[in-house]
Every structure is written in structure tokens, then in C-alpha cells.
């Protein structure tokens, strides 16, 4: 059995090299991260991918290894010599590892990520307030402090935290800009807030990830419930405001 374990370790090393290599390639081709929040949520996702791939190679690799190494050859009958029902060190190691990984994951990326997201929200002294109204099947945006009401295109400045105030006129919707990495459900009879700090200039035309998209089923027009987004420099945003306010 000890000899078999040596083979398993070799299988693990080869599997790990291939799998984590592919992961590195995938992470290099990660889609656009257009906000501070997107970096936090993507960091969490990428960290968990590295970890999941490692666990998959260790556990899945063992299943495949056992299926090959311990299979019965044709014409091979009778029970195996090895009949152990329990092996303490393995069980204890497994138990400690699974508890440790869970605790660690809850702290990072779970709680740390949440703390960072909440921190941005608390530190935002004068966020740009944007009222978002969802209804079947369109989005309308108002900028109460700027005196802009009911525009169908979301225009925001780069580098400033925005407080999206989310309301719905009918059913549940979900406000999501894929490039910004966070989403929030819009619930009837309730008002929700979503804080986003865009960091990348661009528009829906330049990158389809920068778009408002409803991501909670809301009826027939759900797939078309999108709105164009434009992330401008602060100066350009000021110009846009003066051109559009009353």
C-alpha cells in the first residue's frame, strides 16, 4: 500500500501541474474588471478557483488513480488482501483539513471581501446619488442632485463612488453591470442601495460587459431589459450634466 501511495503522489504532481497551468491561462484571460468592487469579487472568485482546482486534483485524482491501480484484472477473482475498515490518521487528517479549509474560506475571501465592500460604502462621504427605477422592461435613471430626471442611458464619472438607489414599479428585477462585478435585487415595496466605484472608462459600445442588465427573471421582456452605460472622465461627466439638467 505504501508503494501505491508513491504512485499517487506522482499522479498528483502531474495533475496539479496541468490543472493549475490551465487555470493560470484562464485567469490571464479574465474579462474586464471595471470597478473597485469588481476587483474584490473577482479576487474572491479567482482565489476560490485556484483552491477548487487543487482540491479537484487531489480528490478526483485519487478516484481515477484507484480505479486504474486497484482494478481487478480479467479473470481475477476473490477478495483483496487489504480489508481495513478504518485508518485513524487518514480520517483525522481529512477532518482537520476540511474544517480548516472551511474556516479559512469563511474568513478569506468571504468576510474579508464583505468587509471591503461594506468599507467602501461607509467611507463614501459624498457619493453620486443615482435613482434607478426598474419596470417591465426598461431602466430609467435620475440624478436628483444634478436635476436630471428619467434618462434611459446610465452615464457615470470614473473614480467616484456611486450610490444607486434601486426601486421597482412592478415585479422583482436585478440591477447588474457585468463589468462592475456586483448586482442587487430590486424588490417591490422596498428601497435598496448598491455602491459602485467605476475605474475603467468606456461604454457599452466599446465593451459589452459595460451594460446594465436585468439578471432576475421578470417576464417576457427580461432578456431585452438592458440599458447602455457610459463611464466618462469627471470633466466629461460635468459637461454631460450641464447639457442635460434643467
Amino acid at each position, binding site marked *: *500500500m505504501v508503494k501505491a501511495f508513491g504512485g499517487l503522489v506522482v499522479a498528483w504532481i502531474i495533475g496539479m501541474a496541468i490543472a493549475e497551468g490551465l487555470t493560470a491561462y*484562464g485567469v490571464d484571460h479574465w*474579462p474586464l474588471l471595471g470597478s473597485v468592487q469588481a476587483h474584490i*469579487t*473577482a479576487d*474572491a*472568485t479567482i482565489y*476560490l478557483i485556484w483552491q*477548487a482546482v487543487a*482540491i*479537484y486534483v487531489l*480528490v*478526483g485524482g*485519487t*478516484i*481515477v488513480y*484507484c*480505479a486504474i491501480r*486497484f482494478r*481487478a484484472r480479467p479473470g*481475477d477473482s*476473490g*477478495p*483483496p*488482501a*487489504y*480489508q*481495513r*475498515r*478504518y*485508518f485513524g490518521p*487518514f480520517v483525522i487528517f481529512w477532518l482537520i483539513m*476540511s474544517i480548516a479549509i*472551511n474556516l479559512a*474560506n*469563511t474568513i478569506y*475571501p*468571504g468576510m474579508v*471581501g*464583505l468587509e471591503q465592500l*461594506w468599507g467602501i460604502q461607509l467611507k463614501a462621504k459624498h457619493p453620486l446619488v443615482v435613482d434607478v427605477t426598474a419596470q417591465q422592461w426598461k431602466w430609467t435613471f435620475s440624478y436628483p442632485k444634478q436635476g436630471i430626471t428619467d434618462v434611459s442611458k446610465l452615464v457615470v464619472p470614473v473614480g467616484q463612488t456611486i450610490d444607486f438607489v434601486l426601486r421597482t414599479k412592478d*415585479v422583482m428585477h436585478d440591477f*447588474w453591470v*457585468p463589468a462592475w462585478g456586483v*448586482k442587487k*435585487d430590486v*424588490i*417591490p*415595496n*422596498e428601497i435598496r442601495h448598491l455602491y459602485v466605484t467605476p475605474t475603467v472608462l468606456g461604454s457599452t459600445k466599446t465593451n*459589452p460587459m459595460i451594460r446594465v*442588465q*436585468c*439578471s432576475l*427573471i421578470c*417576464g*417576457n421582456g*427580461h*432578456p*431585452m431589459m438592458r440599458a447602455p452605460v457610459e463611464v466618462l472622465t469627471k470633466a466629461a461627466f460635468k459637461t454631460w450634466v450641464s447639457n442635460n439638467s434643467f
Partner: protein
Amino acid sequence: MATTDVQGRTVGGAGGGEQPFVWSMVLPMVRAGLFGFIGYFAAAWITAMVTHSVIVNPLPATLGYVFGLLGWIAGSGIWDGWIRRAFGGEEAPSLTGVERYFRFSSDPKATAVRYVIFNVLAFFFAGLAAMMIRIQLLTPDSTSWWLSEVHYNMTFGIHGLMMLLAVAASVIVGGMGYYLLPIMLGARTVIYPRLLGLSWWLLPPAAVAVFLSPLIGGFQTGWWGYPPLAQNSGSGIVFYALGAATLLTSSLLGALNIMGTIIYMRAKGMSLGRVPMFVWGLFAASTILIVEAPATFTGTLMDLSDMILGSHFYTGPTGIPLAYDDQFWWLFHPEVYVFALPAFALWLEILPAAAQRPLFARNWAVAGLLGVSMVGVMLGVHHYFTAVSAVRMPIFMTITETVSIPTGFVFLAALGTLWGGRLKLSSPVLLCLMAMMNFLIGGLTGIFNADVPADFQLHNTYWVIAHFHYTILGAVIFSWLAGLYWWFPKVTGRMVNEFWAKFHAWWFFIFFNMTFFPMFILGIEGMNRRIAVYLPYLHPLNEFVSISAFFLGAGFLIPAANLYISWRSGKKAPQNPWGSKSLEWHSPSPTPYIVFPEGSEVTVVGPNDNYADGAPEPFVWAPTAAGK
């Protein structure tokens, strides 16, 4: 051995199935259909007349469904099989032959066989819906030549609800569980055989209602049925709510039977330490259903009440829509463990026999199954992290991640069993190993949805679709097929064609992964779920997924043909083809109508997984007083 007076007595022609099949045996099913049809239309038309509306409106449809269901059940033979006796009348004689498959019957084996047939049919039709979805997504906007957005929404709603409640919820519990539960425990029947008989007869009307919901307007909500969208997107939601409630009621009746049978009907010497793993899996799944199913089907009925009675639980100015989410996910996240726990248990049942080794760390495996069912109760909120208040996030993140610890015990036991064994890689074993590989991906990607920051981006994208298809299709349906192949000789007396079974397993494994793995990437790239129309930049991957899905879908015809042909003309099976030490292999194949005839009684004297050379037999047969 526990027994009841009815099942204990000797019945003439105890083998069952010896009389040739004649078409008149199908009459109770035809009668049930006719009564159901009459009940539906009579009630719907009368209600429509009284309320001056039309029969496709919510209220007439609801009453129509209720009376249709009653008519169907009355026609099935429940009147002479159960009710007449309850009022002091004479009960119809127990039917032991082929006819018991076509009418209400208290034989768990007949009920289980009907479950398998029903599951296969439901899987076929819900699978066709999946193919329609994938045709839609072949191009970014197919609404001009294929389904409109409205029909697309109905299609995936029906696909989701049917696959979850009419297939996944009962494939292993209903099809295999009800068949094997009494036999594995050494009991002559389950504790409430008539209730078990009833549980199957609730399924077809519910399935028919959901599949035909487009006729009365369909529903746009997907399988969630969320208010307030539910109330203003087609009266088919009535059939959704009633169908879901009926299917859950049926699961609940089965769960009561499983619990009661395990607690009260074990054979002498069958201590909890010797209960087979598969039965433990059924037990863990049943605890979930008993605790949680009532809250959820009450929720769907309250939703219905908002619609037809004018109440405002979830809708209107005073309604709280999130309360529905709470009730809905209270069961429906744990419901996936109702599918998965019997599948886990099935691996642990099959692997020791295949490796000819005792199950490794058995106590930990049992603790794992029960642990999942207990922790699983408390984590539904991770399905709507994007909607709840911040204070609930850390709590439910922690609990959701914790569920991976007991799940890990199942893998611990499986790996320990494989290690140093002498594994016979027959087709069921191959499918089990593939199911483990798939579930590993499904489980590991679940951590992303449990982790709040990652979930904020991945929630409601194709990442989630990929994740749960890996757990349900990849693990539960693979395990279902493994179980079908493993116990096929016991039920039909014939072997499955091994070449085609293995061929299909590989076909299925390859195209399954080609279909669902790219969906993780689609999710990361911003494809949200439940959309008929998507942006062109997602087209190449979607095309790849769709083409793989067609191969995957076509592959299901292989086991369908294999099972049918093997049943008709397969190789005759020996009594114990796999060399398993479990009790169900102690009776001849196919299982006779009376598995444990009057006159002898089984006593369990040892663990049933001791495969060492010269190990003592775990079961001893002793003559009973009545047999002397």
C-alpha cells in the same frame, strides 16, 4: 421480521407476473384518465359558468385541477382497494400479477416500477424541453424562427420544474428506494403500503398539469414561481403551484413511509449499525422532506391564494415578496440533498461490493449523510444574497460552507473503500465513479455561490446553471443509471448489455462535460440565466454548448434502448451477479411477489460488508412458529 397480516399471508401464485398480460389489465388506468378528464372539465366549466368567466381563468383552472385529481385517484382503484374497506366494506383481493402495475396497489415493488417508468417518461419530455432551449441559444436571437420570449420562458420553466420534482426528486428515492427499502431491511412491506401506493398516483396529474400549463397561459417565472411576477404572467402559474404542491405531497408521503419503515420494520438483529448505507441515505433525505416540505408547498398555495382569493401575503401594497423566497428556499435548497443523499448512499452501497472490501469508516459516512441533512436545513438564504439585508450574509455564508464538511465524509468513505480493493469495473461502478468526479466539480463550484463576494457577481449567471447541472445531472442522474444497471437483474431477472452500458457511460461523461463546463466560462463572461436573446459576443461558446447538448440528449436513447432490449431478451441473470452481501440478493431474480415467504424469518448476525476470505454469513434463516 416485522410483518402485517395482509402481506404475511401466503398468496396463490406468489411469484407474481406469471399470468400473461392482457390489454384489459390496463383498464383501471384508462378509467382513471377518463374520470380525471371528466372531473377537470366538469368542475372548470361549472365554476366558469357560475363566476361568468372562462375555463382558462385561474379560479376555474384551480377547481378543475382539484376535481380532476380526485377523479383520477378514484378511477385508479383506490375505491375498492382502500376506501371501501375503511368504511367497513370488503376489500378487493390483493392483486399479485401483472395487473397490479396498472392500478392502485399496496405492493411497494409495483409502485417502485411505476415510478421508474414515470421518471423515464418525465425525463424524456423534460429533456426535449432542454433541447428546445439549446436550439434557441444556438444563435444570439432565435425568436424570429424558433420560440418567442414568451414560449422560451414557459419552456425552461417546465423543464426546470419537471426535471427537479418529477425526475430528480423521485428517481432514486421512488424508483429504487421504495423497491429496496423493505427488502434491504428484511421487512415484508413498508409501514404504510397504501399511502405509498397513493404517492405514485399523485404524480401523473401533476406532471400533465405542468406540461399542459401553456394551454391556459403558461407561466414566465421559471421553476421559482416568484410573486409578484407569478401573478401577472399567465394563468398557467395555477398549474405550476398545484403541480408543485402535489409533487411535494407525494414526496412527503414517501418520506413518512421511509422513516416509519426504518424505525419500526427492521428484521431481527438489524441494529442501526447494520442498516445498509442506501437505507441511511433514504433516511437522511426523508428527514429533510418531513421537516421542510410543508412550509414550501404551503408557500406555493399561499401564492395561489393571492391569485385566486385576493389575499395579499406576497403581493399588493402590503405583501412581502421576500417572504415567499424564504419559504421557497427553506425546502428547495435542501431538496437538492433529497436528490443527492440517496445518490451518495448508492455509491457507498455499490463500491464495497465492487471492490470486495468493507465500507471504510462507515460511522463517519453515516454521520456525513445525517450531517448534510441537518446542516442542509439552514442554508436556503444563499440563493438570494443579492436581495437580503447585510446581517444575514455572514451567517448563511458560514452555514453554507459548513455543509461541505459532512459531504466530505462521503468522499472519505468512498476513497477509503477504493484504496487497496480489487475493483470490478462493471458499468454501474464506472457510472458511480463518474458521478463522483462530476459531483466534485458541482460541490466545489457551490463554494463560489456560498461565498458572498464571489456570489455577488456569479449569482443568476450561467455559472449557477453549470454548477447545479453538475450536481443534479452529473451526479444524481449518473447515479440513477448506475442504480438501474446494478439492480436491473434483481427486478427483471436479466442482465443489462454491458458493452452498450459502458459505451453510453463514456458518451454521456464526455458530452456532459463538453456541455456544462463551458457554461462556467459563459457565466464569468456575463451571460445571465433565463434569457432567450443574448449579446453576440457570447455566441461562439453558446454554439459549442448547444451542439454538445444535442449529442448528450441523443445519447439518452442508448440506455433507453439498452434497458428495453435487455428486459425483453437480455442474458438471464444469476441470483447474485455482483457478489454483493446485501440482503436483497438473497432472494431469486426476479424478486418474487412475496420476498420473504411465511415460514422462515431472517436474523442479522453480522455486518453485511465483510468480504474477507471465509467471512461468516451475515444472515441466518430460521423457521418461524407459523411455519412449523
